[in-house]
């Protein structure tokens, strides 16, 4: 049980994908202008990271390892995750229009972004088993969700302030993101 707790806390706070690993920065900056869309994006990332953790584990353990081609993991993971996300998008579109409306529009955007690929690679490097991989993916997604929702709240408030012309838009967002990352340093040493 402590192992699971360690993974959970570690992925959400200590090794937060955005805040301390700097992965998944593109959706983090691109879709954080409004809290609604940030929430949708975060949920989509959580969803994709969870299922891709499971599938990449299976592909690695049962295809790449037996055939002694572990060095192909990067390209194999990209292939598997891209196909999987496409498939899931089609499936959701058919079966649940409501879910598609809230989640589906974000799915093509995050097909193998660095956070999604990163979680797969880290699971492999940490020698997690299937359950641990899935948990790690889920917790990593939750960490991303928390980061992007908090950040969108900050950005919504920044909008109302008189910002010098040179800092308007992305520059001030990057500075805010940097300060937020520094605050996440406080979690270092928790586990």
């Amino acid at each position, binding site marked *: 049980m402590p192992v699971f707790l360690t993974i959970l806390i570690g992925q959400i706070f200590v090794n937060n994908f955005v805040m301390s690993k700097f992965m998944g920065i593109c959706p983090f900056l691109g879709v954080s202008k409004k809290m609604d869309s940030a929430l949708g994006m975060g949920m989509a990332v959580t969803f994709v990271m969870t299922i891709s953790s499971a599938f990449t584990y299976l592909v690695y353990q049962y295809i790449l390892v037996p*055939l002694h*081609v572990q060095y192909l993991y990067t390209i194999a993971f990209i*292939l598997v995750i*891209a196909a999987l996300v*496409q*498939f899931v998008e089609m499936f959701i*579109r*058919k079966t649940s229009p409501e879910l598609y409306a809230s989640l589906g529009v974000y799915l093509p955007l995050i097909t193998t972004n660095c956070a999604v690929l990163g979680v797969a690679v880290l699971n492999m490097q940490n020698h997690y088993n299937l359950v641990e991989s899935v948990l790690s993916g889920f917790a990593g997604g939750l960490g991303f969700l928390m980061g992007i929702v908090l950040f969108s709240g900050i950005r919504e408030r920044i*909008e109302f302030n*008189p910002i010098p012309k040179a800092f308007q838009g992305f520059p001030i967002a990057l500075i805010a993101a940097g300060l937020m990352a520094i605050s996440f340093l406080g979690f270092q040493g928790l586990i």
Partner: protein
Amino acid sequence: MASIFIPFLILGGIGILAGLLLGFASKKFAQEEDPRQQLLRECLPGANCGGCGFAGCDAYARAVAAGEVPVGRCGVGGKETADKMAAIMGVSSDAGQPMVAFTACCGTKDKAERRFHYYGTSACREASVIPGGSIKSCRYGCLGFGDCVKACLFDAIHIKNGIAVVDRDKCRGCRACIEACPKHLIRMISKEAAVEVYCSNCERGLDVKDICKAGCIGCGICSRQCPQKAITMQNDLPVIDHALCDGCGLCAEKCPVHVLRLIKEEGSSLKDERVQMVPDVVK
């Protein structure tokens, strides 16, 4: 040789497998779309303003194609769009008369008293939640930070001398500003409406007079003078029934505080002078 060939086979195999799976899935989960939906979507302006009550032009086109809602909900496209959509759907369009936004406040900087120097965030949404609900003494009046200006997709509303004024030629009636205004000052009126009340303060006349030189004092002269009996007093404010009003302008003439005005006489091409509170204080 094998060291190249085997990885090639493995990756190719996974790729082909994934391709087959996706090909199969795209057939199996194919989404049938109403061909009219695309045509309807092309008629719509694509502003995605949400004035029709749907999440955007795509959503409205889908709902029309499905027969759930009538054509003519699009305020931006107006009658032209409604006619085109009606032709596609094979129905007759009965788009109502065009509506434009109207801001019921004329408490400009020189007329309405300010309670204090405000250093807070330059947004109506923020300034409306401070104690007392306004930076002006009048709790009902326009705050002038231009949340509506930001919301407007058509550059049709501007801050002039501390209050929001609608450019009636540019307004497409999408209602985005109504959603944005925390004071609920903006409402839709018919573009044909002749006269309106430029105040929202429903307190008694004496109290209004103290805090705003432009506010409605609720004297009721307009309602007594109106030959058509189109004006009734509600909550110390005149309410005009535009169906009865013939636009004679007698009320505007008789109004002692000039808060009832002929809309046509009010200027419409305006320059944006969003309130800059901080420089004001520095001066």
